[in-house]
């Protein structure tokens, strides 16, 4: 029997999101290993070309590729809209991967004219994504909570790209005033974190977490807090970082309100769930949400000058990028990738032959190992960075790398099912063959 080609219908071929997700996992492993290799640099100031290479491996390679790949899977499901162009999604992937490799490599060797060219290629990939998403969502009938936050995140991506290009061009032409570079850099980072990543994660979580946990979709004031908190908070924070600390503080408080709203919803979904057992994917997701508390506390502390210095700024970035976003993404991937594989390989045979359940595609022991290593590694790394100890940073990086490898191995085992044409072939047993 042939595999259905959803691309001809309403959802893209499973290989479209999968290629993004696989590339993202490779970037994650590379970034974790990079922490070990760059422990000495990480013990110093965060503005260092090699640390910029590491940061972009995380933000572009790991986080952005994941979000973009997941978008191609989730947009048809969450918004009931077809992807405008699968071909563009494939070109976009090629542009992004080529651009990211160039960007990271040129950052690493501090060759900024090459870095600017690579940034242009990344920019072309991002524009392709924006066009594809805008055309896919064109004419959307209902602008739900998730749809609004999704649109907000695309606007955040535009601004992040704009600030990034300005910074890249400044490394070549040196046109920013000396006092303007770091505020622009901080704005670029926070636009990526709070303008691009946070809205999409909060928006998707509101639809997907109830699906995973078998709970009612949340409603009420936390939704308004998230929409208004991010809608007003991110622009104010960005302007404040550029011009006025007080404006930045108001923006930070509004973003904190959005975080509070999100956590209230997550807690409500977890409390009202009809699925009592939590698999490792869900534990990752909830652990990631819990990391928002220390990340927000550190962010507010830095905004209000209660805390300061490059070490705590690095710890803040690690708790946010490594704790909240990365653990959330790992959890989401442990749910999404097995489903994509199951859908591609086994869904065509449902009702006609015995097929494995989704849980049978998982490797719980390996997932559990990944949870312990990644959670411990992220928390250890944040503490080591705050202390400024290269030895401890290296040790935490090693734990993190092992965790990333365990996670990659888990997904690799799931992806092995793509080789199976039938359940019987996969089982490789007479009993399995008899079921057919």
């Amino acid at each position, binding site marked *: 029997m042939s595999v259905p080609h959803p691309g001809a219908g309403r959802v893209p071929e499973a290989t479209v999101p999968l290629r993004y997700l696989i590339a993202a996992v490779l970037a994650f492993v590379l970034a974790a290993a990079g922490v070990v290799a760059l422990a000495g640099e990480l013990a110093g100031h965060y503005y260092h070309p090699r640390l910029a290479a590491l940061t972009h491996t995380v933000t572009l390679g790991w986080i952005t590729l994941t979000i973009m790949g997941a978008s191609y899977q989730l947009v048809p*499901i969450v918004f*009931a809209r077809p992807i405008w162009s699968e071909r563009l999604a494939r070109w976009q992937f090629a542009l992004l991967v080529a651009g990211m490799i160039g960007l990271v490599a040129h950052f690493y060797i501090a060759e900024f004219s090459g870095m600017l060219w690579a940034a242009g290629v990344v920019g072309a990939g991002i524009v392709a994504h924006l066009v594809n998403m805008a055309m896919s969502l064109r004419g959307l009938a209902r602008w739900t909570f998730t749809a609004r936050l999704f649109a907000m995140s695309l606007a955040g991506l535009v601004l992040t790209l704009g600030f990034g290009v300005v910074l890249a061009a400044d490394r070549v032409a040196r046109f920013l005033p000396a006092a303007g570079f770091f505020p622009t850099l901080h704005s670029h980072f926070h636009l990526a974190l709070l303008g691009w990543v946070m809205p999409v994660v909060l928006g998707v979580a509101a639809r997907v977490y109830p699906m995973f946990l078998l709970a009612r979709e949340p409603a009420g004031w936390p939704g308004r807090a998230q929409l208004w908190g991010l809608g007003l908070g991110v622009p104010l924070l960005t302007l404040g970082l550029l011009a006025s600390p007080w404006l930045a503080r108001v923006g930070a408080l509004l973003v904190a309100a959005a975080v509070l709203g999100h956590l209230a919803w997550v807690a409500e979904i977890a409390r009202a769930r009809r699925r009592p*057992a939590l698999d490792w994917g869900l534990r990752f997701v909830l652990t990631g949400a819990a990391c928002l508390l220390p990340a927000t506390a550190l962010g507010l502390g830095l905004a209000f000058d209660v805390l300061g210095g490059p070490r705590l700024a690095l710890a803040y970035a690690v708790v946010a990028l490594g704790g909240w976003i990365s653990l959330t993404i790992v959890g989401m991937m442990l749910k999404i990738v097995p489903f994509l594989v199951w859908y591609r390989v086994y869904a065509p045979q449902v*009702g006609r032959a015995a097929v494995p359940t989704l849980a049978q595609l998982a490797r719980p022991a390996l997932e559990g190992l990944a949870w312990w290593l990644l959670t411990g590694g992220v928390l250890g790394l944040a503490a080591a960075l705050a202390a400024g100890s290269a030895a401890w940073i290296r040790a935490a990086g090693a734990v993190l790398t092992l965790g990333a490898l365990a996670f990659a191995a888990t997904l690799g085992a799931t992806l092995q099912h793509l080789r199976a044409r039938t359940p019987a072939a996969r089982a490789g047993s007479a009993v399995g063959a008899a079921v057919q």
Partner: protein
Amino acid sequence: MISADTTLARLLDEHPELVEVLARYHAHFAQLREPNARRIMAPRVTVAQAAAMAGVAVDALLADLRRAAGEPEGAAAGGPSVTPPARAPKPAALAALPAEALVHLDVREDIRRGAEPFARIMAAVKTLDRDRALVVRAPFEPFPLYELLGRRGLLHWTECRAPDDWSVWFYREAGGAPPGAAPARTAAAAPAVVDVRGLEPPEPMVRVLTALERLVPGQRIEILHDRRPTLLYPILDERGFEHATDEPEPGVVRIRVTRRAGAA
């Protein structure tokens, strides 16, 4: 919440540790620790059927499972229970068969030894032609076989000799399909409404497609869903089903599905 109509597949997906509880009730359930046996048996047996196979009250098994899963035990099953089949008369097609046309397979000893008799049963099925019947003798009612062999066009008639001695006759109707042909579909087997609300993906898709495979051409079922099943539509199209979706009330998506005449 675990209920009487929860399949063992779903139960063990969510609570893998409960295989030990089931194994305490009947040694045959220890087979569920093996991936292959689990893949065959678990999707085809509900908790109520497992209770019947173990010869215990469904409420007792439910209470034990819920306790082990950390769920409130609840008062009663609330779902369908399995009762011994009514003493239906032996079908005419079977009564007409001479003794030499019966293939007897007693798997009681296999099951007592903890061995999985499935491969033996399937080997015996392969020897059947339309003039022969297979008589499987088991220590409990073998629910998974009904669907598995039904998909091969075999009808069944069950005889309960004692609580731990069951004979199930698998046979083909006169003029029925030859071995290996497409599964027999009967209108009576298809549910009118398949409610998959509140299920975790991909369970809704599994239930819907399993139900749809029993549809006869022209017959229609209604699916009640939490959301538009975007990933299901391409499979429905490929399998030759017509479908229309609406939202009769907020939060409820209804899909009406009809098998096209001549569809596979």
